[in-house]
């Protein structure tokens, strides 16, 4: 009696579990089963991929676009059969659970098996496809040499080149796991004789869900006086690919050549000194690391491009080095996915024209340059390289602080460029985003804070551009300048009249000697000017919505003269200039020409959020 009652209760409980499992399973494809986020410099928000049993969603096209470079097939080509069958299969499996609940026979318990196995099947199939996609890369892909075939991570963080990814199982999968657990429990309740089978099932699932890791089998060699290796060269000679060489202090003679993929780590500040000849360190193997050294004393010949470190192997990591007394600093040539991070670079004391570039990146896609300090070199020049990330670097007393040519899809953010001839000059690049940079005091003969030449879809946003000879110079550029604070430059914005498709919105032009100058006769009226703050605006905001009731117009005769005779800018605030303007108003013989109109000028300046935060936090 007792047993029967319990049996009935457990039977009802099992039925409840089975129905609940069926509901969970049926509901599960509404949520993604597996998701991955890819972080790439050019996609600040990251790229998302969500996999359902029957479909893909998220930034599939973007991810396919990236994958194309390494030769991975489009994601939609994967698991086509599985996706087609997924919904009918889930319905059948759920039906199985319902049958198991409805049929009073013991053998009906077999109907729960598909539901119990389904999450395992999903994981296995997903892994199989990831492996298949990652290992079968098209050898003719543009970057096939840069990326070796790999197995994308199923769970947790992963990395391919510069792309960091995180993968996790998502709601739908957990619903299916819940369904499987419910089915297994129900089966247990019915088969009390075989509890261990269920336990085994659960354990197997747990194992599969664990991230897989293969620890590298690498040795560590130490370079120190009276050690096994007294010179770096001998350690390099002895090292196997993948080994780590730790250099304990000391002064070592260059030149050094890394021909194997090794990790070279300096502890207690070891010096590599080139002795004033040629290039000090050459990184020729891929996947090498150079960290923690003082690299100094290259030659000073321009004709041989003498440098501190020349990188020609892909995926190098050059980190936390001090590179000083060199002609060129770090010269990256055809070495995609290289990372230059937290290096401190300073050049030789030579006239700026005679110096080399402290950072030079040539024909190397997806290079990351972050948190470096560059003082007293020529340029940081990046060209013929796409998908770069240049962030949080500090450049002082250079020629072109940051110089980009043919760098499509790159991201330039949070850098600080000052006291150079030109701050950032961007040329011939598409979809380059330059934002949150601080660009000040660049006053060479051109003296552009930011210059844009033949740029397509440029996005220049939230920058502080102050105290330059010319804040922003535009020549034949297409794009948007938004929410920049452009202040105290001799000229705020200078543009050639050919500039026609630039959207200029939400910027604050504060007390520039001349707010906007058109170089050569023409008007800037084909450029969109809207919602900017102009410190010389004389209108008012009656309704208090932050937007002035009168348009801001610029059409002064004096500005035209100043365009022609730049020295007149010195007198911009003098009575003479006012006299000229007055004369222009008095004698319409020489009618002032309209230059630009902002129909909705802001009445208060807008300070970029990062700057406001810094000012709020700091002294």
């Amino acid at each position, binding site marked *: 009696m007792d047993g029967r009652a319990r049996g009935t209760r457990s039977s009802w409980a099992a039925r409840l579990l089975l129905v609940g499992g069926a509901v969970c399973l049926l509901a599960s494809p509404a949520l993604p089963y597996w998701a991955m986020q890819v972080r790439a410099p050019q996609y600040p928000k990251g790229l998302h991929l969500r996999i359902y049993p029957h479909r893909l969603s998220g930034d599939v096209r973007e991810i396919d676009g990236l994958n194309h470079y390494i030769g991975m097939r489009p994601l939609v080509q994967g698991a086509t059969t599985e996706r087609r069958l997924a919904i009918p299969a889930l319905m059948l499996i759920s039906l199985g659970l319902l049958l198991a609940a409805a049929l009073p026979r013991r053998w009906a318990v077999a109907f729960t098996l598909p539901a119990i196995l389904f999450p395992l099947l999903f994981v296995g199939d997903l892994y199989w496809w990831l492996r298949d996609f990652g290992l079968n890369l098209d050898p003719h892909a543009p970057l096939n040499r840069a990326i070796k075939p790999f197995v994308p991570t199923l769970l947790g963080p992963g990395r391919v080149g510069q792309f960091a990814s995180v993968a996790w199982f998502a709601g739908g999968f957990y619903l299916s796991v819940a369904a499987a657990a419910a089915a297994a429990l129900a089966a247990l309740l019915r088969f009390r004789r075989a509890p261990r089978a269920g336990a085994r099932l659960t354990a197997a699932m747990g194992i599969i869900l664990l991230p897989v890791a293969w620890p590298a089998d690498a040795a560590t060699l130490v370079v120190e006086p009276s050690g096994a290796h007294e010179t770096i060269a001998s350690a390099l000679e002895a090292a196997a690919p993948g080994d780590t060489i730790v250099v304990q202090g000391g002064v070592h003679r260059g030149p050094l050549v890394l021909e194997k993929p090794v990790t070279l780590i300096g502890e207690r500040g070891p010096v590599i000194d080139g002795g004033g000849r040629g290039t000090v360190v050459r990184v020729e193997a891929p996947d090498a690391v150079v960290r923690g050294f003082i690299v100094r004393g290259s030659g000073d010949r321009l004709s041989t491009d003498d440098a501190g470190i020349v990188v020609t192997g892909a995926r190098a990591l050059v980190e936390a080095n001090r590179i000083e007394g060199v002609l060129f600093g770090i010269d990256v040539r055809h070495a995609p996915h290289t990372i230059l991070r937290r290096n401190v670079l300073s050049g030789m004391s030579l006239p700026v024209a005679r110096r*080399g570039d402290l950072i030079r990146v040539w024909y190397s896609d997806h290079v990351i340059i972050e948190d470096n300090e560059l003082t007293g070199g020529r340029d940081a020049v990046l060209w013929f390289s796409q998908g770069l990330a240049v962030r949080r670097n500090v450049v002082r007393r250079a020629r072109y602080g940051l110089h980009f040519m043919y760098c499509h899809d790159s991201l330039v953010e949070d850098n600080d460029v000052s006291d150079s001839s030109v701050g950032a000059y961007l040329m011939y690049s598409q979809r380059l985003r330059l934002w949150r940079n601080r660009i000040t005091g660049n006053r060479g003969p*051109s003296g552009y804070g930011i210059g844009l030449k033949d740029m397509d879809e440029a996005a220049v946003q939230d920058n502080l551009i102050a105290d330059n000879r010319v804040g922003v110079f535009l*020549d*034949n550029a297409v794009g948007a300048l938004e929410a920049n604070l452009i202040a105290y430059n001799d000229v705020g914005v200078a543009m050639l009249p050919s500039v026609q498709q630039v959207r200029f919105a939400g910027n604050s032009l504060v007390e520039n000697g001349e707010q906007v100058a058109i170089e050569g*006769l023409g008007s800037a009226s084909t450029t969109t000017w809207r919602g900017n703050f102009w410190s010389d605006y004389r209108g008012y905001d009656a309704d208090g919505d932050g937007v002035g009731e009168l348009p801001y117009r610029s059409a002064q005769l004096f500005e035209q003269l100043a365009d022609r005779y*730049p020295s007149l800018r010195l007198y911009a605030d003098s009575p003479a200039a006012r006299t000229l303007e007055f*004369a222009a108003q008095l004698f*319409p013989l020489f009618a002032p020409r309209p230059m630009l109109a902002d129909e909705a000028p802001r009445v208060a300046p807008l300070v970029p959020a990062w700057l406001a935060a810094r000012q709020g936090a700091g002294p």
Partner: protein
Amino acid sequence: MNRSKRIGVWLGILAVGALAVALIRGPAPRKAADQPAAPAGLPGDAAEVIRARTLSPSDVTAALATYTPTGRYDEYVMFASGGHSGQVLAIGLPSMRLLRVIAAFTPESWQGYGYGVKENPLTALSSSRTPEKAALTWADTHHPALSETNGDYDGEYLFIGDKANGRMVVIDLRDFESKQIVDNPVFFNNHGAAFVTPNTEYVVEGSQYAMPLGGEYAPLAQYQERYRGLMTFWKFDRAAGRILPEQSFAVELPPYWQDLADAGKLVSDGWVFVNSFNTEMATGGIEEGNPPFEAGTSQRDTDYLHLINWKKAEQAVASGKAETIKGLRVVPLKTAVEEGILYFVAEPKSPHGVDVCPEGKHLVVAGKLDPHVTIFNFERILGAIEQRDFEGQDPYGVPILRFDAVKEAQVELGLGPLHTQFDNKGYAYTSLFLESAVARWTMGDCKYQAPEGPWKLAGKVPVHYNIGHLAVAGGDTVQPDGKYLVSLNKWSVDRFLNVGPLLPQNLQLVDITRPGEQMRLLYDMPIGIGEPHYAQIIKADKLKAWEVYPEVGWDTLQQAKSPNASYESKVVRDGRTVEVHMTAIRSHFDPEHIVVTEGDHVRLFITNLERTRDATHGFAIAGYNIAASIEPGETVTIEFDAKTQGVYPFYCLEFCSALHLEMTGYLLVQPGEARVASE
């Protein structure tokens, strides 16, 4: 006091006066301000024009500076290349009026160039090494070079290279017509062409894209071994007005891509300088996953300025040290190194000009990606060569002079410096491609001294847009004129009315008479017939062109009396050849009937008997692709086969008189049976 200051002061005085009046008498009557004010000295209707056309004060000054009333002549003539039109343009300054398109490599029917007349080099061109080259009907003219005497333009000849096909044309400035086309037998492309040595001893042609000398096949895998560059020195015979290929020679160079050149003068006489790019020796192949050329050629930070001692090369050739390739004597690279003919010095990446200052002492090089110009001192170059002060050698053993030993100065000008010329006030002018501007800067250690002191940026003027070369009057001679500068802009974007997606180039005239930053843009000239790459500006009074040909019966190719000149009409039949001696004078041809039989070969000699200036006659026969321009005194020869029977009117192409339409005649080609009947 200069003009703009005068205007400024004038406006200022008026303004202050008006302010005073306004203060005393209250607000000025609105009506007064609406009236166009007539400034002192300007007629009232001028004020009306100024207002109607919304001109600014500087517009008015610019207009006055360039307007050339009818019958008044220009002060300068600019010879600009016509780019891939294959021609040369002669433009008057300051009016910027197009005076003449000189037919050079491309058939031009108005001038009767390439349409049946035998007295021109297109028809006379022989010795083509490939069938493709024989059929060329166009060229890419790049760099015109006026002939020089003692380093100054003498106004006698003009040379220009064909970059696309490695050819050179000689133009005689007595009649502004092309006289000779020379085909480089060893090389396909040139870019540093033409430049002349100070007394036009040689016309220099620098190659561009390296290739196996002589045009043999070699795969790109053998680029470093088999491909080469070349500097050709074409011997010029001034009296004959001809290049003498058999007395010319060339110097073999490494397979870098040589670019623009300049000849030394005065202290640097005897040398030619040429810069280069692709010292990486990149061979491209983007489709094979290699870096594209644009990236591959930009890998290094510097290229090599080539210093070539042509007098030593001349001696080496004379002493038999040259090898003959396809009829051209070539000094081998190894010999050039051994004999001290060739040296290098590092120069900023991808430069587009090496320009020798008026005294021959300084060489200015601008790398397009370096905002500085680099100035080398020729005396120090000689010193470094003498002391063997080398920093290394290139893979071919060419010594590289130590950069710091030969560098004089580096001056920061702005973005994308490209080409430099000089004036007579101590300024140099450099085009800034990336900045779309011209920079004016001061020379140091120069017979002319600018007020700002040596090696300083003095000012900039924006130009529109993407300036390539620039030309200053006499700007590459020992005696520059200054005064005017022309900016040869590659893009015009918004400067002119829209005439469709193919836009004209824009040549802009800049007044450089006043010092410092006071450079003034005066005038825009659209060029809708080609892309002028480079130009030279000569004082008009140095040109001594004929008004009419010296004698009636003039062969314009030989510049001598033609043996076929005719003063009376005459028809001579010799078997199946018919010779027709024809005269042309307003307003008839004589004979007016040319009667031949189907299958006859016709030789037509037409002499324009006119002695009146501008009384040019044309001659065209329907259906025969024949068009001649016969200037007063000129005799032309036209040959054709009368293949098909019929009646073919011929007529004068130039509107020569009131009865021009009547200046006509008939070519009557009888059927073949007529001959049988008459025989």
